């Protein structure tokens, strides 16, 4: 589904990703862990198509297509979703109107008509229940005045609405208390299927107790320095990142 080969990317003269290789297949959950500043969030943004980052070498391939010339919205239409670490506040546009616009734009890109209003309402109801979201919440301006937890839950609600093939969760666990974490993780698990894949980017092992990864990768200084199974996350939690840093140097 997603094949990243020798990916180098950065801003201006500063290289942040220094040769990432990653293969994600349908039905898999990958966790990417690493210390602050290692390039985790940059990788997420680059996959989603943020133009601030320039790809200097290597490639990202999604379902057989090179993504280099593909705009962020087209990537979304193809089924890539990024749950933001810091979702942006958009005053004046309600969550519902935002979702209507997003869904209908994706449909338009696929040559479909707008989703009928009653179908849209049904979908919104179903998905908001899945994430235990209050209906009143949906008429509020997008992310405006939302607590950290509400923002993250709203991200996963959007993911549920858009039903992506590949979801990248960028530090979705940060700012969440344990109850909110359970709701979010539960939502992600319910959306999982053999046809879609999830990349969980996190600093801590905590979220991985709820979303069980098939693979864990550790990123350091723009490279994946170690890959393994879920046990690797536990080991990291135990020994800390310094252990790996030392190991890499050695």
């Amino acid at each position, binding site marked *: 589904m997603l094949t990243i080969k020798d990916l180098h990317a950065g801003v201006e003269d500063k290289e942040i990703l220094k040769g990432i290789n990653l293969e994600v297949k349908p039905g898999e959950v990958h966790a990417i862990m690493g210390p602050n500043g290692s390039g985790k969030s940059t990788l997420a943004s680059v996959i*989603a198509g943020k133009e601030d980052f320039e790809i200097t070498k290597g490639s990202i391939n999604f379902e057989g297509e090179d993504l280099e010339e593909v705009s*962020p919205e087209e990537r979304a239409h193809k089924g890539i979703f990024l749950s*933001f670490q810091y979702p942006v506040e958009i005053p004046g546009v309600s969550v519902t109107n*935002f979702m209507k616009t997003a*869904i209908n734009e994706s449909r338009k890109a696929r040559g479909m008509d*707008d989703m009928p209003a009653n179908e849209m309402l049904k979908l919104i109801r179903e998905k908001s229940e899945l994430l235990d979201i209050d209906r009143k919440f949906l008429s509020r301006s997008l992310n405006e005045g939302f607590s950290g937890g509400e923002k993250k839950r709203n991200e996963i609600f959007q993911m549920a609405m858009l039903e992506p093939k590949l979801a990248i969760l960028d530090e979705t666990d940060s700012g969440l208390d344990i109850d909110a974490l359970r709701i979010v993780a539960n939502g992600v698990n319910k959306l999982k299927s053999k046809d879609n894949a999830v990349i969980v980017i996190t600093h801590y092992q905590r979220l991985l107790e709820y979303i069980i990864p098939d693979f864990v990768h550790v990123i350091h200084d723009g490279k994946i320095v170690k890959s393994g199974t879920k046990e690797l996350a536990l080991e990291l939690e135990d020994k800390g990142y310094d252990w790996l840093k030392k190991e890499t140097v050695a």
Partner: protein
Amino acid sequence: MDLKEKLVSSFMAFENYVDVEHPIHDIRTEAIKNFEAKGFPSKKEEAWKYTSLNSILKTDFSIFPKEENALEYHQVKKYFLHEIDTYKIVFIDGIYSSYLSETTHDGVDICLMSSALTKPMYKQVIDVYFNKAASREESLTTLNTAFSREGAYIYIPKNKAPKKPVEIIHFATGNEASLMLQPRNLIIVEENAELQVIERHQSLTHNPVLTNCVTEIFAAQSAIVDYYKVQNDSEDATLIDNTYIAQKDKSSVNVHTFSFGGKLTRNNLNFYQHGEHIESTLKGVTILGEKQHVDHHTLVHHTQPNCESHQDYKGIFGERSTGVFNGKIIVDKIAQKTNAFQQNNNVLISDQATINTKPQLEIFADDVKCSHGCTIGQLDEDALFYLQSRGIPRKEATALLMYAFANNVLESVRLPELKKRINKLIANKLGVRLGFDL
């Protein structure tokens, strides 16, 4: 002959059309003298520093349209708020169109300035109000006063409210190669009465039109007036809009100005508070492209204690368009407990667009709350990426952010059909289709 000379010498010809014995004519005569002495404003004047009329004044405008021009309703239907029933005062090339209008004398007077200025039954009101709020110094206002003859006249007696909003629309047909129009409106809303007005100037061709309009609004105690200016004229039209509002105790006057069209638009919006517990609201959404220019000059004069004013102007400037916002607030020494707020936010979506924004506060009282803020920025790239990553194309995402930006100005529009219409105008102006109304 330049336009000033042409206008001054036309005044004698104009006197053939009006009753020179009427006391109003003394006001006109005094006004033309003032204009003759001052002439058109130039960029040397502080108030016109960023707006030049020079190139426009080179056009040889016709001052009196030659004949009455007719329009069929279906030709101009889209310019009316036709989704709802309204009173209509319609002018074609400056001449009243009874065919397109719907006036009334049923408990309220919604009719013509030409009647009000000539018929004895209106004389008392005219004596009290005509030219009492408008400036006798400002040259363009005095130019309008000198040639004042036609426009809208609205009188709402105590405790009355018309059954429906009033639309004042001026059409220019282009039958003249170039045309100058000087409508004069007088609106009086008596104690505890209410009124909603939508004003529009619409040129139907690319022939140049210069409109120099003066509107006087008097809001008596506890009166409520909502005034909407829809400025979406053709790209060869110039509008100088001079609005003077005098308010008494507990009255509330709200003016919304939507500026999307025209070549050059200058809005001089002046509020004078003569009483306590008055509320004045001035809101504007400006969206420009090409080489369009819009200049908002506002004045709120707080002369008594315990009053409020709220100003909120949003501007979006693309291509080589230019905008000006100059917001003047005067708080007299006696006007304690004044709350005066002013906000002007601008987004430049092109490197070649320009905005000049200037708050001008003159506060002589010491127990007041006055705040002002102006911002000039570009669209937030992170916000755009966020919307794009949800599948919303960049163009639509841009429009959505613009919508969000203009939203709180539209929130206070109390006519839902008008709000919808403005929504559509914004979407059209931004060149997008939006799947919802705000």
